């Protein structure tokens, strides 16, 4: 069969792709475990012949370079910035999906169109706004900004999902005498958990991995700098200190990778919900 013919090359191609995709990450990890002089002197693949590994880079990077504090800052920024938009988006999604009002379609279209507005377009005015209100360099500034930036996607995804809920379930609740609020908290929200979960993961990863917004609104103060900002700073100030940079990059990757692997299912589901026709 024609199918059998294509097996061999397909396998070969996939193995090659898998190797190509993993190799850079493996290189990073191995280098972070090598002493400084080795990293600068020979390629990381040489450890296969002469293993000489150490944890000293991690110790240095977590204490001396302040990455431990940055990790903490990343958490303080990412967790509220993830949870705040969820409920607000859910309210709006519920309204868009199940309430009739003039201009509903146009308004929803506007909100979704805002999805494509680049963050750069908002940098200057929002920065001036934060400066005028004294919020620059504070965590709440980032929580508010990330909420604003994340709402279009959140509203879009939740609206798709909530709109797809079976109408009879909601009708049944109405017949039972539940008003809008009760329907929302007792029926809609519990049923929407998968969508909310996938949204939470999206938002968390986006905020955790963000550089530009933090760089611009936190004003580069080291005490509030998240991991991305600190690592970018390390890149520019240490130049070729690869032994430290690789360890720092790996520290920043641990949490998102863990989140991603354990919650991959929801993440993927959320993606597909938005992009594939049902």
């Amino acid at each position: 069969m024609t199918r059998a013919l294509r097996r061999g090359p397909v396998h070969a191609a996939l193995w090659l792709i898998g190797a190509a995709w993993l190799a850079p990450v493996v290189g990073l990890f191995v280098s972070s475990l090598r002493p400084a002089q080795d990293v600068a002197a020979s390629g990381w693949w040489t450890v296969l012949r002469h293993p000489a590994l150490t944890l000293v880079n991690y110790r240095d990077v977590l204490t001396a370079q302040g990455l431990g504090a940055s990790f903490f800052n990343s958490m303080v920024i990412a967790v509220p910035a993830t949870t705040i938009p969820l409920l607000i988006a859910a309210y709006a999604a519920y309204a868009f999906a199940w309430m009739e009002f003039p201009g509903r379609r146009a308004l929803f279209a506007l909100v979704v169109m805002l999805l494509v507005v680049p963050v750069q377009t908002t940098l200057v005015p929002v920065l001036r706004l934060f400066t005028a209100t004294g919020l620059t360099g504070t965590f709440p500034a980032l929580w508010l900004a990330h909420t604003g930036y994340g709402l279009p996607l959140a509203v879009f995804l939740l609206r798709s999902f909530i709109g797809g809920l079976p109408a009879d379930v909601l009708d049944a609740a109405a017949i039972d005498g539940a008003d809008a609020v009760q329907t929302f908290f007792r029926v809609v929200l519990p049923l929407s958990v998968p969508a909310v979960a996938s949204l939470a993961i999206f938002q968390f990863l986006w905020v955790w991995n963000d550089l530009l917004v933090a760089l611009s609104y936190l004003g580069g103060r080291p005490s509030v700098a998240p991991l991305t900002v600190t690592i970018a700073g390390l890149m520019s100030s240490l130049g070729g200190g690869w032994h430290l940079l690789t360890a720092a990059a790996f520290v920043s990757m641990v949490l998102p990778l863990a989140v991603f692997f354990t919650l991959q299912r929801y993440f993927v589901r959320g993606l597909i919900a938005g992009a594939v026709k049902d």
Partner: protein
Amino acid sequence: MHALLLAALALAAIPAASAAYILGAEAALARLPTRPRRALRPWVWLAPALAFVAVFLVYPTVDTIVLSLRDATGAAWVGLANYAYAFQSREALVALRNTLLWLGLFTGLVVAGGLGIAAMVERVRYDAAVRGIVFLPMALSFTAAGVIWKFVYEFRPAGAPQIGLLNAVLAALVHGFEPRAWLVGAPWNTLFLIVVGVWIWTGFAAVVFAAALKAVPAEIVEAARVDGAGEWRVFWQITLPVIGPTTAAVATAMVITALKVFDVVYVMTSGNFDTDVLATRMYHALFVDQHLGRAAALAVILLAATVPVMAANLRRLRGDEAAR
């Protein structure tokens, strides 16, 4: 610890406050007669989201457009002078050229790569593993990816031991290979930066395409095969058209991503060696040149480039709405 307290407070207080808001608003609504209540209710539910979006997306966009017509400090009107800069100065033109390169190559490679991988992976048992591996970079920040790949591209002069993976592999495979500083030579260096972007985003495309491929009705494919069509023809003439909407959605998402690229370029080359893109140029104009007007003009150009994408999105949405 002050920050921790603040965060914990925010974590607990905001949902509580949001819930209190909706409960309070609904209670107020209940006092009203039916007609005004029904008219007002959607707006009550929409208000918080609309407020955020207005403050952080709508107002800044309008303000940026206004600022783009003003001078460096935003004080005086200068008409289209900033746009003249954007389309005539060497740095801005380089950034525009590179952004176009990203738009075309990045989008094309991700869509083609994602589709290709999804198609191949359909036929093997370990599809979940491959998808997982290819998808893994999505969890990383662009910053971490920048570190990883800068290391891969590392250059040492000929004769010295190579520590960068690319130079080492090529030196091993190609006889007489001279190591190259991949990130230094324009315009190829932009290509190597695009590779980093492709490495990150192809997994996303592959996952979406894999789901779409699964949704292709098996009967159509089988019917075509029975009619004697070969694999390629089946793919091009049956499968591709069926997943057309998905392809459009992925391409749209990638176009937007390409336009917004900042971290990869900023972290790997700081925009040096002619690798600047619109977003890094805008950052430079804002924070190094301190020219509000120029920064705003570059941002507006970015925005304008997304208008066709917005229009396409809108049309798709209208199609969705009609279908409901």
